[in-house]
């Protein structure tokens, strides 16, 4: 079986179609490996080579990767959930019930989405603190630190806007409490809250606005910033590596 799979793959590689997609040959030399990274849209923002030290778990705990992976998981599960969600009250709540009781694997997807959302907030915070303690914000990474702080805020907003969507008591009151804080802002607080909620109370309009923010605007912003964030890691010379990383412990 092993060899069958193997020869099938080999066979596939010799096809014209395959070659039109992956113009490089098998990635078995450093040149073709470099080409693989250069020539792929999804990999091209990575450097061709990385320092061995920065690959060690201790160097970053892969917290940046974890945050990004969680983002991808949220993206995929979120899109699937959108197929069974109406951003309208109280329909939204009925959709939660349907996810739980009748949609195949619906409750699993919702659990995964919710869990990943909490984990992402957690991972992003931890990522930030970790980077700080390693001095990762120091030149030449200053700007990327700022991008990171903004990404943290976007993550919080994403999580918070998603919080309202089930339209249950938990969601409703969490958002009511949260948005009341905005009103405390001098001069413009009430106006901002009014615009955010599309009214004076958390109602139909608020649900729709939070939905649009949650599924369109904030993910777009996050994608853009994540791209910049990763790109800048490479352009700013890779992860910060301390000389003492060699001995395996600080």
């Amino acid at each position, binding site marked *: 079986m092993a060899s069958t799979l193997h020869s099938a793959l080999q066979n596939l590689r010799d096809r014209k179609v395959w070659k039109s997609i992956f113009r490089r040959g098998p990635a078995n030399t450093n040149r073709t490996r*470099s080409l693989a990274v250069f020539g792929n849209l999804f990999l091209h923002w*990575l450097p061709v*080579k990385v320092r061995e030290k920065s690959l060690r778990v201790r160097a970053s705990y892969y917290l940046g990767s974890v945050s990004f992976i969680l983002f991808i*998981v949220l993206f995929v599960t979120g899109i699937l959930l959108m197929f069974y969600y109406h951003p309208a009250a109280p329909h939204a709540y009925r959709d939660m019930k349907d996810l739980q009781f009748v949609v195949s694997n619906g409750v699993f997807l919702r*659990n995964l989405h919710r*869990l990943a959302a909490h984990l992402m907030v957690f991972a992003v915070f931890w990522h930030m603190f970790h980077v700080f303690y390693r001095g990762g914000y120091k030149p030449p990474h200053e700007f990327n630190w700022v991008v990171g702080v903004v990404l943290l805020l976007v993550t919080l907003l994403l999580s*918070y806007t998603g919080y309202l969507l089930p339209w*249950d008591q938990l969601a409703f009151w969490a958002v009511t409490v949260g948005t009341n804080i905005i009103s405390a802002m001098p001069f413009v607080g009430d106006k901002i809250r009014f615009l955010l909620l599309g009214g004076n109370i958390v109602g139909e309009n608020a649900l729709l606005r939070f939905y649009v923010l949650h599924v369109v605007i904030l993910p777009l912003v996050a994608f853009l910033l994540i791209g910049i964030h990763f790109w800048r890691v490479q352009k700013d010379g890779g992860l910060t590596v301390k000389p003492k990383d060699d001995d395996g412990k600080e």
Partner: protein
Amino acid sequence: MEKNKIETGFSSDAKKEPRRVVFVAKKTSAKVVGDPGPQLMTYPHLLIREAIAFQLLVIVMVLVALFWDAPLEQLANPLLTPNPAKAPWYFLGLQELLHFFPPFVAGILIPTLVVIALVVIPYFNVNVEGKAIWSRPAQNLRIVLVTVFLLLAFLAVFYAWTIFLPTALVAALLLFSYTARAGEKGSFQVLARKPVSWWVMTWFIAVALCLTVVGTFF
């Protein structure tokens, strides 16, 4: 070779078809401090680690998601206020602050200041690996004592005990590390080498953590 050229789609004749591979200008590349050390190819070494990280993370999440259901309470009802009405956990620290300070201070001023502080970190000369706070023990001790006392007094005035406690704890650590500066071994020795920025961040995390925990469970 000609055959290969057609197949791969690359022109190898730079004279016939000149192509710019890279533009090297002064001061574009980042100046990286420290020894770069040995390097590995991104493909496959980084990618495979990312793949493993992805799989492990998903495995853990799936296992949790199978046995822990996302909370769903009753249909939203504006007439039925639960007690207590709580924000998501990451805002519970903020919600705790509201107990101590007016909404404007707790809800707007403090978060804004925190965000600004985070943003400006790299643009000030607050260097984590910089000079230790006890490198000038005599002058700094006086400043530290006054600052800590003022801060604690301020918190006590507002009865902000959940902030007071972690603050006092971090301050105690800071002052203890003062005693251990003279080239000894031990954990206080490590703390004694930490600069101001390290202490400020640690204090912030301690307070945020304490507030969040209190907000979540009480």
